[in-house]
């Protein structure tokens, strides 16, 4: 039983490290291929797109406020 436990521990260690390395090796290879394909065939046209969603709405508010400020500014100048 105790020898078996040791055997089990060794099995887990050997198989485990083996699979970890094999899997990450595959991932390195896959990542390399993926990056090369994307860089060559699907390059980015424009720089990173702006964030979607709530952020945008916030921006709209901000823009509205800035707009209002500009309006105010122009009125002041006219006076």
């Amino acid at each position, binding site marked *: 039983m*105790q*020898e078996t*436990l*040791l055997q*089990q*521990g*060794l*099995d*887990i*260690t050997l*198989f*485990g*490290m083996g*699979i*970890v*390395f094999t*899997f*990450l*090796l*595959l*991932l*390195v290879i*896959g*990542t*390399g291929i*993926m*990056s090369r394909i*994307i*860089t060559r065939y*699907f*390059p*980015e046209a424009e720089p*990173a*797109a702006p*964030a*979607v*969603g*709530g*952020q945008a709405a916030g921006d709209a508010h901000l823009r509205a406020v800035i707009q209002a400020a500009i309006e105010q500014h122009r009125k002041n100048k006219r006076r």
Partner: protein
Amino acid sequence: MENLINLWQSSGAYQMAAGQFVMIVVGLLLLFLAINKKFEPLLLVPIGFGGILANIPGADLSLSAAEAALAGGDPRVLLQMAQLLGAEQLESAYAFESALKEALGNAPAALQLRAEQVALDAGYSNGMLYNFYSVAIASGAAPLVIFMGVGAMTDFGPLLGNPRTLFLGAAAQFGIFATVLGAVGLSVAGIMDFSIADAAAIGIIGGADGPTAIYVSSLLAPDLLGAIAVAAYSYMALVPLIQPPIMRALTTPEERKIEMVQLRHVSKREKITFPLLLLILVALFLPDAAPLLGMFCFGNLMRECGVVSRLSDTAQNALINITTIFLGLSVGSKLAADKFLDPKTLGILALGIVAFAIGTAAGVLMAKLLNLVSKHKINPLIGSAGVSAVPMAARVSNKLGLEANPHNFLLMHAMGPNVAGVIGSAVAAGVMITMVRAMTG
């Protein structure tokens, strides 16, 4: 029968109280470390507090209804339970109680349900922390949801800019397996009594990744979960103390001065494709890691795809925070005295720190090995970041790099092995769960 029970009560109560008192002090110590020393407070505050709650005598917060019925000690209920579980011929009072508890733990599912029903009919109910544990951890949900949130917070850019750093994340997992061997060795030497499942769960501490450690130990060794989670988070907090001496011992000043080439720009499309690539590889070769890595990739895809930012925000904030609160309290429920105050806990604490040290060393040595065959040299200080402990380990690499060369900013370079370490330990977790199940099932 009644005298017998009374006897047990009068004898057991004091011992219980002693263990519970110690555990309340342990809980306070964890809170002190979390609050005053900033030891991973997001987890250790709930864990420490949950640990105190679990040890309030008479409150039974971490017990199921059936366990509470056993602890309640009403002789009629005990007898009913004993008949149910086929444990009625026992003699001494103490043996009776503990034999019932064991019989309950080992009973088939149908009998456990019956015991639960008997307890409910007798007016007992599941404790608050027991319910939290069932929903959050026994179901496996909370660690996976946290992993999804971590995925949504992770930027794979540095790793994609330099995929070789994945090997550093692989090497650092040697800490896990060395610890498994260590635990097995302690058992073979007769010092501790760890099963292979225990050993595997203890080893995962070396992954330096909290949710992975909780997930694995909830499956393989639920009774050790409290000690393993406490060890994992404490040592992650101690990374700035544990790693530097090992890193200095294994590198020359010249190696520590190596400046790495600027990371290339990584496109949005690569970042979107990476979690899918990882998922496909998992699906093809490593189904056992599918829950952990699947949720991690899902979180990361939500982050990078740019069209579900409201889901990604929620995964990174409200959802992960809610889950953390209940996960922490649930882990605390496993700090009940009878589970934590066990020689095994000392073994776990001792093995855990060895795991961190070995993982750190393996990462550094792998970096030196890679340098033997690469054109672009890697500063071996970033190898230690392969243990994960995101982002603490990467910061340690950066700090030692600046000590050696004030113009050497390693932080972004170290983030590559750092996140690779998360993947690596999830892979190791998947492998160990499958192998242990095949060995014990």
